[in-house]
Every structure is written in C-alpha cells, then in structure tokens.
C-alpha cells in the first residue's frame, strides 16, 4: 500500500510536467490551428537555460523565473520571425516548419552544451533532504514542481476566463475570421499566445531538470511526443483535458513501469493513444473534431 502511494505521488510529479507541456501544445493548436511539433524543444530550451542560471546563481526561484522568461522570449521571437508568415498557408506548411524547428533547436542545444552529453543540475538547487508526508517520501524539489504546475494551471485558467487577452484568444480559437472582424488584433494575440506557451514550457523544462537532475538537448523529442499523446487523448484544443490527461499519463507511465515489465511503459502510452483514436476519434473529452481541420 505504501509503495503504491509512493508510486502515485511520483506519477503525479511527472504528470505535472506532462500537463504543463501538453497545455502549451493545446493552446497553440486552439488559437493558431496548427500542431507545433517543436513544442518539446521549447521545454528542452527551458531545461538548458535553467541549467545555466542554476549553475550561475544556485537559486531555485531565480532559475524557475529566469527559465520561464527566457523561453517566453524565445517563443515570441520564433512566432514573429517564422510562424507569423505562414499562418494563412495550407496547414501542412506551419506543421512542416515546426518539424524543421525541431532539429534547429535540438542542434543549437547540442552546440551550446558542446558535445550534447547529459549535464547535471548543480547540487545547490537539489537539496537532498527529503521528508515524509504520511507514508510517502517527497523531496522539496518535487513539492516545488507540483506547486509550480498547479499555480500555473490556476493562473492560466484565470487569464483565459477573466482577462481581455483570454477573451480574445478564446474568440480566435472559435473563429479566427470573425474574431478579426470584431477587432481582435490577431498578430498581437498570436504573440501573446506564444508568450504564455513559452512561460509554461520554461517552467516545465526547469522542473524536468530539477526532478531528473540531468538534462541533455535530446529530451525535447520524447516530451513533445508525449504532449501530443496527451493532447489527442484530451481532445485537441481542450485546455482542462490537457491538464487532466497530463497527470493521467504520468500515472500510467510510472505505474506500468513499476508493476508491468520496466521499459514497456512508454509503449503502453502509445498503444493507449492509438486505441483511443480508433475507438473515439474526438478524444476522451470529445471536443468536436470539426475544429481539428
């Protein structure tokens, strides 16, 4: 029983990262109608920037904030220099552009970390002290991850439902043309969306680094694919589905690694997506798939 509680907790921590990653992906899809396959690489950028800041300052909070802001800036720059100009083209063009971005970002990451070997996060941000909550052992880093993820999700919910920017973004996700007719500045809002996505990815990346304690430029690929998995499961463009789906995927992976053969966990998550898509093409939470064109 205690082991199960421990595994569930670990799964939730991992799930928090997946949820943040999936949220960013689904947000870009909802607002701009393309699947940004380079999304995992933004998280990787967050992890690498976080590594740099942590090595320089050794302060966890500075690392989180700095990583988030740096990736937000990177995301906005990417949007302004590339994605903006292909928004009105066939949906294949931005998709393939993001495929190209995957290797550009990965390679830049590889060059920055020189040979691209895994680099450890410094011990100063890694305190080894663990404490017990009931039967479960947790480290401060895990609690920080969970808190940061929860806080960001609440914040995102508030921004999307209570602010004018959120209203404009939701209007764009419903119908870009009509939103524009009603005076939504699509260019500015696209940048705003990418800024938010960058913040989410940056935090996810730093949390990934803190939990796994080593990072390399190749973590983006698997993360991005897992985010795609979550987003399909949740229904494309469904924000709350992505939060829930991320947590669930973390649990599935940790539990299947713990109780089924190790190493097969990843395969089960892909099998799960394929089955979900075959049985229920609109995802579990059933966002109308007509949107997904």
């Amino acid at each position, binding site marked *: 029983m205690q082991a199960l509680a421990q595994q569930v907790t670990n799964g939730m921590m991992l799930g928090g990262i997946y949820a943040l990653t999936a949220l960013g992906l689904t947000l870009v899809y909802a607002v701009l109608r393309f699947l940004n396959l380079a999304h995992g690489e933004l998280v990787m950028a967050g992890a690498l920037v976080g590594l740099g800041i942590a090595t320089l300052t050794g302060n966890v909070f500075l690392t989180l904030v700095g990583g988030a802001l740096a990736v937000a800036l990177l995301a906005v720059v990417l949007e302004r220099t590339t994605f903006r100009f*292909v928004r009105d083209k*066939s*949906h294949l063009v931005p*998709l393939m552009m993001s495929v190209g971005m995957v290797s550009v970002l990965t*390679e830049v990451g590889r060059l920055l970390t020189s040979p691209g070997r895994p680099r450890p996060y410094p011990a100063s941000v890694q305190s080894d002290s663990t404490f017990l909550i009931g039967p479960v052992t947790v480290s401060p880093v895990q609690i920080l991850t969970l808190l940061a993820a929860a806080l960001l999700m609440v914040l995102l919910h508030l921004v999307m439902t209570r602010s004018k920017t959120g209203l404009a973004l939701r209007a764009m996700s419903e119908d870009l043309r009509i939103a524009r007719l009603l005076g939504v500045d699509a260019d500015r809002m696209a940048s705003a969306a990418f800024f938010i996505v960058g913040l989410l990815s940056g935090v996810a990346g730093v949390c990934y680094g803190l939990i796994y304690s080593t990072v390399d430029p190749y973590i983006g690929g698997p993360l991005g694919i897992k985010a795609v998995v979550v987003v399909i499961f949740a229904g494309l463009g469904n924000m709350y589905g992505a939060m829930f789906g991320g947590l669930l995927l973390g649990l599935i992976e940790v539990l299947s690694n713990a109780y089924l053969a190790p190493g097969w966990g990843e*395969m089960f998550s892909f099998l799960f997506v*394929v089955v979900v898509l075959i049985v229920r093409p609109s995802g579990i939470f059933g966002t109308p798939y007509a949107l*997904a*064109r």
Partner: protein
Amino acid sequence: MPDAYQISLLVFIGIYSLWGWSQWLPIRSGVLLLGQAGLIAIGAYVSAVLTRNGVPFPVALIAGSLAGAVGGTLMGLSALRLPPFGTALITLSESQLIQTFLSNFEPAGASQGIFGLPNATNVWLVWGIVLLVTAALARLSSSTFALAMHAMREDEVLAGAMGVNGRQHKLLIFALSGLVAGCGGVLYAHYIRNVAPELFGFAVLLQISTFLFVGGRTVYWGPVVGAAVLVGITEGLRFLSEYRLLVYGLFLVLVMLFRPDGLVTASTARVISQAFRGWVGREGRRTERDSKSAGVE
C-alpha cells in the same frame, strides 16, 4: 570514376528518394501519413530477420516490401475514420509504438538491434529500383488514378460524389506508401548492415519531410531533388557535416517561409518540361487535363 564515398552518397540519395515517395504518395491524395519511420522499420526488421536466418536477399527484399505494404494497410485501416490531422497523429503514434516495441522486444535484439547483415545493397540495385518507381509514377501521373488523387486532395466529399471510392483509394495509397517505405527499409538495412530501433525514430520522419518539402511535393520527382540537394549541400560543404541536422532544419524552415511549395513547384516543372521539349525539337503540347493535374494544392 567516382570513389567509394561518392557511390555511397548516390546510394543514400536513392534510398532517401524511396523514403520520400512514401510520404509523397499520401500527401498527393490529401492524406498526411507520418508513420514512415515505422513502415521503414518493418521492412528493415523483417528482411534482417530473414537474411540472418539464411534466406536469400531477393526473397527478403520482396518479403520486407510486402510487410511494409501490410503495415501501411493496417495504418490505413486504423486511420480511415479520422480527419486529416487525426490521420497524422495516429500514424505518428503507431510509428512510435513500433519503435518502442522494437526497443523492448528481446527476440529482435531489443535496443541493440540486429548486427552483421549481409552486404547485399549496391548502387545498381538501388537506382534500378528508383528508376522502376520513377517509371511507375510517371505512368501513374497520367492516369485516372492521379485524377482521383487530385480530386480527393481538393475535396474528399465532392470526389466521393463524383464516384471516387475514398475508402478503397485511401487504403491503396497507404499500401503503396508502405510498399515503397518497406523496400527503402530493406535496402537501407542491407547497406548499413545493421538495424536498431533508434535508427527509426522521429529523426527519420524529420529527414523524409525535409527531403519532400524542400524538393517540392507537387511533382513526383520532388523527393529526388530534395534528397540530392540536401545531401549535396551537406557533403559539398564538408565543414558543415557536423551541423548536418542544423542545416536540414534551417533549410526546411527557410523553404517553408519563402517557397512554401518547395523548390520544384508545378510551374517550375512546366517551364523545365517545355524547355526540354523545345530542346528535343518536338512541339511542347499540353492538354488542358495535364495543366490541371499539375495544379498547386
């Protein structure tokens, strides 16, 4: 006389062209199939297991290609009900599923893969097959099948109303794509002489998409142009070889930005073909159907 290194480049251009066609075929029918890595892996692994157990290479080549076709058909069956994006996602997931399965499957060497395959692929075989496929595609591009592909891409519902059997057609496209991918996989495996799961990951999809989208997806020889240009650039500028993937990625982003239809578009193809006909000295006549079937998406 080209040296061994140059010949190996030629072989890779040929193999990459085959890979590229396995994405070109679906895209020309408005289907976004992103499972090529998995299909290539199926062809490569099936043939690797066969040749390791003493089966002659030609048999393994045919078996691997057919296995790819079966894999493609299965992917098609699972994706039939889904809209374009759904098709892209499910085939990508299936490709990842195949890769993760192979990296855990002990009888196929798990993450080590299978080593010591016979060196059965050579430049003549690869380019023979490439020419065969080119001939088939050239024949195809003036058939009613190509018209049906074009109609499906423009408007699937309307194409259905005009008598194109969408279901059958899509499955055939998936099977053909799998056939070409599987064949490319067999040739690849028996050229580098080993197979391993990490060879068939997301990077392969990235490479294929780069070749196809840089070369141009509107004419059937686009993938060959893309493969030749990209392999040429990275090998011509030797000092870039360490940054190969960076160059591919940048090239893809830039081409999408400035020439979203690829380097060879329908209009460039027309110019080239007319110049060629003029040079040969024959009247370059184009029927209305030709110019329509060469239309841009």
